[in-house]
């Protein structure tokens, strides 16, 4: 009987939950999580919880690196930006690096979920850590969720992501979308695919019966790091087709 697990289950039991996952690092999962959460926050009360506790990219994307969460009787109060709630370990450790052994990592992740104030959330979006590790087991322990899988067109990424799809298939969890990030760049109305076409991703999506969506590269995105909620370019336009 772990009180943290029980509290986390209680907090999430009436919520819609999306987990943005990738078995491979560096595929742009945090950016996709952030923009997906921004989009959903326009329609329903959404809280983004950054469970990538070593990267903590959400704080950097939204420009809240130096802020600390308020702790109230109801738990960790989310930061609110244009209606989107954000919970990040960065708001607990003040932009300090966090390196932890596996068991501690799990406890911290579970604490972050259990102690969050989710009373106002209808939809909780988790930015999951990269890789195939105990984080996925922890998520399975505390809630049912809709996975959104992020990859790039690269064969290495696709092969790694396939292992995640196999795992989800084994535990009978069906992802809704396979997001192929950095799939192409639109240069003066010419489509260029610097990392190859999405042949492997398409085969994978067919094999696992998951809808595939290609997301372009937008070089302007760098200008929005720290104010990602203001971004209205090609990436978010493409993601909005998922709504």
């Amino acid at each position, binding site marked *: 009987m772990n009180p943290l697990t029980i509290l986390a289950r209680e907090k999430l039991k009436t919520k819609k939950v999306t987990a943005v996952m990738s078995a491979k690092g560096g595929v742009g999962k945090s950016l996709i999580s952030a923009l997906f959460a921004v989009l959903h926050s326009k329609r329903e009360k959404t809280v983004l919880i950054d469970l990538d506790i070593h990267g903590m990219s959400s704080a950097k994307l939204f420009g809240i690196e130096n802020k600390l969460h308020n702790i109230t*009787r109801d738990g960790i109060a989310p930061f609110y930006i244009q209606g989107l709630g954000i919970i990040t370990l960065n708001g*607990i*450790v003040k932009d300090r690096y966090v390196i932890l052994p596996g068991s501690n990592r799990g406890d911290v992740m579970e604490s972050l979920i259990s102690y969050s104030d989710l009373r106002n959330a209808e939809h909780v979006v988790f930015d999951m850590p990269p890789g195939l590790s105990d984080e996925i087991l922890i998520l399975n322990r505390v809630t049912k969720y809709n996975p959104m899988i992020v990859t790039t067109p690269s064969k290495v990424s696709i092969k790694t992501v396939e292992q995640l799809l196999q795992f989800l298939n084994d535990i009978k969890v069906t992802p809704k979308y396979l997001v192929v990030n950095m799939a192409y760049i639109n240069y003066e109305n010419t489509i260029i695919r610097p990392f190859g076409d999405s042949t492997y991703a398409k085969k994978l999506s067919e094999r696992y019966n998951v809808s595939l969506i290609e997301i372009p590269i937008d070089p302007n995105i760098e200008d929005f790091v720290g104010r990602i909620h203001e971004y209205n370019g090609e990436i978010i336009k493409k993601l909005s087709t998922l709504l």
Partner: protein
Amino acid sequence: MHEWSVAESVIRTLVQWSSKNRVIEIKKVVISVPSFSMLDVDVLREAFDMMKGEYSFSGTLLEINIKEPVFKCENCDSTFSVNDVGDQIEKIKLNFGEEYPLHLMPALVPAFLVCPYCGSHDIEVSSQSITIDKIEVEKS
């Protein structure tokens, strides 16, 4: 304020446990918290007493034990106590004030403390979590 969340986690656990075991009344629950989390036991007890009525645990007493964890450095194999890293804990408290991170998440301890013998962050901690050690039942 974090004590309220801890109290809620204990009560939610009691709700689930009593339902699973078909227990009507719980006499006492014994929990343990790690000393370096600096939880205020008076506030924790007050929060528990305020909440327990809502969940039909009006007669349940809360007993709180403070655990003194043993730290083990995986790098140099030394063991040490909270007293050995007292100066480090004071610095964290000074830096964060009321928002002392180990209060909220004791499992963050290897990210903040280093072994006093070799300076490594590769530390294992016994008893870092809040645990429910015993539930005493009145009648079932």
